[in-house]
């Protein structure tokens, strides 16, 4: 059974496994694979089951049930991260909802330079940087660690995610603001 193989593979691998890798390993079609993943999620991601599944940026990982966080933390003797400042939270929010997103786009929304904050978030492992061939500049997404810290199975579980992520008005506004900035700088 596909799900059996999947469950074993995911258990054996401590790191997140890419869906593309799974496809190659199991040699199945996209539909069969996605169906199996959905099946596992349906069975695991319930309150009573101790192991949950998360998916982020095309990778899947088995994690502990968020309700058991305290016990597990005690077992692993892990401390929860330090506090976040207001600018950090705002920047994280923007990246979470609109990722992958470029630095200029983040700055358009916040209205202020974000270089230091982005560097801090990178150092703390809360966001990740990747090269975007199309946009020819780095793009940022929240890290799997951050998603896990929020206790979410996927970033799309954020409230109003669909609305803020896809929102055409926001996209257009960012584009218009960027044009404005480039016009201003060309006038100087």
């Amino acid at each position, binding site marked *: 059974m596909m799900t059996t193989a999947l469950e074993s593979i995911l*258990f054996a691998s*401590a*790191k*997140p496994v890419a869906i593309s890798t799974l496809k190659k390993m199991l040699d199945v079609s996209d539909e069969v694979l996605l169906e199996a993943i959905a099946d596992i999620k349906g069975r695991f991601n319930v309150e009573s089951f101790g192991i*949950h599944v*998360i998916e982020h940026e095309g990778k899947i*990982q*088995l*994690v*502990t*049930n*968020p*309700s058991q*966080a*305290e016990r*597990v*933390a005690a077992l*692993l003797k*892990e401390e*929860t991260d330090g*506090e*976040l*400042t*207001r*600018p*950090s*939270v*705002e920047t*994280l*929010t*923007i990246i*979470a*909802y609109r990722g992958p997103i470029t630095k200029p786009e983040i700055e*358009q*929304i*916040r*209205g*202020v*330079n974000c270089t*230091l*904050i982005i560097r*801090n978030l990178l150092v703390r492992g809360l966001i990740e940087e990747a090269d975007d061939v199309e946009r020819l500049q780095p793009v940022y997404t929240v890290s799997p660690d951050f998603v*896990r*810290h*929020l*206790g*979410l199975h996927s970033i799309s579980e*954020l*409230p*109003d995610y669909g609305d*803020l992520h896809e929102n055409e*008005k*926001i996209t257009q*506004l960012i584009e*218009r*603001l960027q044009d*404005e900035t480039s016009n201003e700088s060309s006038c100087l």
Partner: protein
Amino acid sequence: MPFEIKLEQFSGPLQLLLDLIEGEKLSITEVSLARVTEGFLKHVDAQDVPPEELADFLIVATKLLLIKSRAILPQLQLEEEEDGSRLADQLRMYKQFVDASRTIESMYLSGNVMFPRERTILVKARGFVPPVSVTPTVLSEAFRSLLKRLEPFFALRRASLERVVSVQERMTELRDAIVERSRMMFRDMVGGATSKVDVVVSFLALLELMKQRIVKAAQGDAFQDIVISKSE
């Protein structure tokens, strides 16, 4: 380090604007933006805005002034009608994310953390096994492209380093000369100058020495030579 912390606490001009508007229990419209313009400007004046952020604050300030002036003189139409509504839109969009960030913050602090399995202990391979595709060519290309990416950074450092050293040197020269002669003309100082930059450097050195009250300078008329004398 303290400087960085300060930066972290300042969320920028949009936060200030939002605070002002919400403080007066207004909704985000052009009218309310015009209302809070003075408050915004006062804040920027009074607060110790970090210099890097000052430009961003000024951009918002000018947009506010534009909105306010249009409110006062509605008959004065300018080409870019868009600016006012764009600031309002931008602020509304910013507010959406600020609201969302409260949720994220509470989720982050709630401690509902999911832990992954601990990393399996990798069996260390005996000896060094480099990846197959890494040839010396690959390595040298990677390093070359890295150097290219860093080139503008190095160029900048080099240029500014040169200039700084020169001003210091020139200051020492001038100070030694003044100690000996107790009076000289600026033209004497820059007589041997090879470029405009050289002259500027000398002038900067002179200004610095004046600031340190080591020398005094006097100029008879515009564009006349400058008389440099030792301070008593």
